[in-house]
């Protein structure tokens, strides 16, 4: 870059950074901080060092949205679990109850499975209004009915005032993966196409605004929705689908980074193709947050072979949950393990893993 500096040294430093970056992140912290829950590098470090270390087995080591398990009959089960601690518990477009069902249904859908059964466990703070609990549970029932899944077992724990913030929900789910279905980063090839099923960042921004800490009003609804049908629509149109994820916490940016690392490819996104609603973009611009890292709760991100991409897109846009579907990028061989964004402005930049929660900038 600089004519006065010896070129070689910069290359060396860049290489050093690159090797460093390829190492799985290491856990150096003494206590758990919010960054460990944000889905970025810190989360990966915590999972590696604490959980994988202790539980190590083949199914877990896939680190997918859910585990794939083979029954003696030869049938394959997908099994997933997730906890929900959103604040506020009710926001435009949904509630913690909807999320608790959709989240697990979607984790299973991303394994190619229709969720059949869910469990639900509640941690409730003493003093929590029964009315609100009833409303949350009604939302769960409604969401389960739409997703065609039954909640068949559960648990309730009540803790002292202050020991929890209102109500936390954990759900787990099981579904059968039809024969012949297999997705994985190892199937992804240069030339493949990256598809998303709609606008980015709606959920994260809706929740952020609903917290009311910001003097900002915008009409943004959470996109929380079950993706099992859309997944089937996609697979029918693009049976060669290589890889599927729902970009929840950490957003499309984080999920693409995981894809690039696992598949050892480059993911090249086009900024001008990213579907983002005006108010979401406006709020993100104001807060200095990149919409690529903002959570979605009703979108799927797929890698499909180039020749099936058009068919997939055509099929998805007619589904009510996929009207804003778009081809947003492609897979390239180089530079390995990197997510690039071709900016609308004509530049190119790297989209890296986030270190912790996206913290708003001050100016």
């Amino acid at each position, binding site marked *: 870059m600089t004519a006065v500096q010896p070129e070689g*040294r910069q290359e060396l430093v860049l290489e050093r950074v690159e090797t460093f970056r390829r190492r799985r992140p290491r856990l150096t912290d003494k206590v758990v901080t919010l960054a460990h829950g944000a889905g970025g590098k810190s989360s990966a470090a915590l999972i590696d060092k604490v959980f994988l270390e202790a539980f190590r087995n083949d199914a877990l080591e896939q680190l997918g949205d859910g585990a794939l398990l083979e029954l003696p009959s030869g049938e394959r089960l997908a099994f997933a679990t997730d906890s929900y601690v959103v604040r506020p518990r009710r926001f435009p477009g949904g509630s913690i109850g909807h999320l608790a069902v959709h989240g697990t249904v979607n984790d299973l859908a991303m394994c190619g499975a229709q969720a059949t059964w869910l469990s639900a466990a509640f941690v409730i703070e003493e003093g929590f209004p029964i009315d609100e609990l009833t409303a949350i549970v009604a939302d769960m029932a409604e969401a389960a009915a739409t997703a065609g899944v039954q909640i068949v077992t559960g648990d309730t724990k009540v803790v002292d005032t202050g020991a929890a913030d209102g109500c936390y929900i954990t759900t787990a789910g099981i579904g059968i993966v039809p024969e012949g279905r297999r997705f994985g980063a190892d199937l992804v090839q240069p030339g493949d196409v990256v598809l998303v099923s709609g606008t980015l960042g709606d959920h994260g921004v809706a929740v952020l605004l609903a917290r009311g800490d910001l003097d900002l009003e915008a009409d943004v609804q959470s996109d929380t929705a079950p993706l099992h049908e859309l997944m089937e629509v996609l697979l029918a149109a693009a049976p060669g689908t290589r890889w599927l994820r729902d970009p929840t916490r950490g957003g499309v940016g984080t999920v693409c980074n995981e894809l690039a690392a696992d598949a050892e490819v480059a993911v090249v996104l086009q900024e001008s193709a990213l579907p983002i609603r005006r108010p979401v973009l406006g709020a993100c611009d104001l807060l200095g947050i990149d919409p690529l890292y903002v959570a979605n709760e009703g979108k799927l991100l797929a890698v499909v072979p180039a020749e099936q991409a058009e068919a997939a897109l055509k099929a998805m846009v007619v589904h009510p949950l996929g009207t804003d579907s778009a081809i947003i990028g492609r897979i390239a061989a180089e530079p390995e393990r990197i997510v690039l964004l071709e900016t609308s402005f004509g530049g*190119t930049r790297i989209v890296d893993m986030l270190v912790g929660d996206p913290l708003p*900038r001050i100016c």
Partner: protein
Amino acid sequence: MKYVDEYRDPAAARLAVRRITELAEGGRNGVPYAFMEVCGGHTHTIYRHGIEQLLPETVELVHGPGCPVCVIPMGRVDDAISLAEQPGVIFTSFGDMMRVPGSTSSLLEAKARGADVRMVYSPLDALKIAMANPDRRVVFFAVGFETTAPSTAVTLLRAREAGVTNFSVFSNHVTIVPPLKAILDSPDLRLDGFLGPGHVSTVIGNRPYDFVPQRYGLPLVTAGFEPLDILQSVVMLLQQYADGRCEVENQYSRIVTDEGNPIAMRILQQVFTLRPHFEWRGLGFIAQSALALNEDFAAYDAERLFALPGVRVADPKSCQCGEVLKGVIKPWECKVFGTACTPETPIGTCMVSSEGACAAYYTFGRLHKTAAGLAAASA
């Protein structure tokens, strides 16, 4: 929003780049032009839109001291943490200040240890928290240049009006002109001009920069924050060289006036007073470069209300943030860049905020050549 789109138009960008390439042909006596963007917001725009690799080799952008988070010295962060850990205190801070390391930990870690640290988006939010928690003492960690200082001032005026007594401000507001002078006075300076800080100038106007061409013989163009603003400002700087001019110009005239915002300036004077000197991370002590609350607002001044350690902590030896801030070295030339100092384990403040020169370079600038090559291949 249409406003914004005009300033992100790729066709206009190509035109501007062509003009830059023509004007910068051959560099300045064979060496690339080095322009410093003063403001962290500019750095962010430059990386976010991939502007560096749109520029020809003959123009180089140097990231300046305008990231308010990056310039807070460790001792002040320690003070903030000690405030946060006082019993009964709710400590409020902007998000990107939370990860900045003090000598032993950060606010985020203090929070994890049990301190009541809350992220706010504006000082008014902090005041609201104070009014909602009358039995707690709420302290706001005020950082930023003349851009954010007025909102702190307005908040203090409101607090006094409303008779709120449990609210105070730990002021770390800084001013932009003194560090610019400090940079210009540095003997190893190698700069050919400045992209002036757009946001700050909306408050203080363009006049205060007159000394840059007059005393130091370098042009300054106040620049906006959209990607095209940056390119246009570079064109304007180069045009000055081509015309043999050297002056303060205003690219951001849709927002910035020569006089700035007299109302905001008046409010600042009502609430703040200049400190005799203030330590800047990497740059050392700079005279009259920061704002403290004045006597009238003593009752709201956390520095007077609480006992603070106030210990000066030297920057780590390996830290070369000062040189990076002055544009003397590029981030990658720092010995610990990318090894001991990374966004996960920042040693210097330039690595902490995403606007810090080192973090920005680490996140977006790496492999820029590969990226550029790929973009060229796919174009």
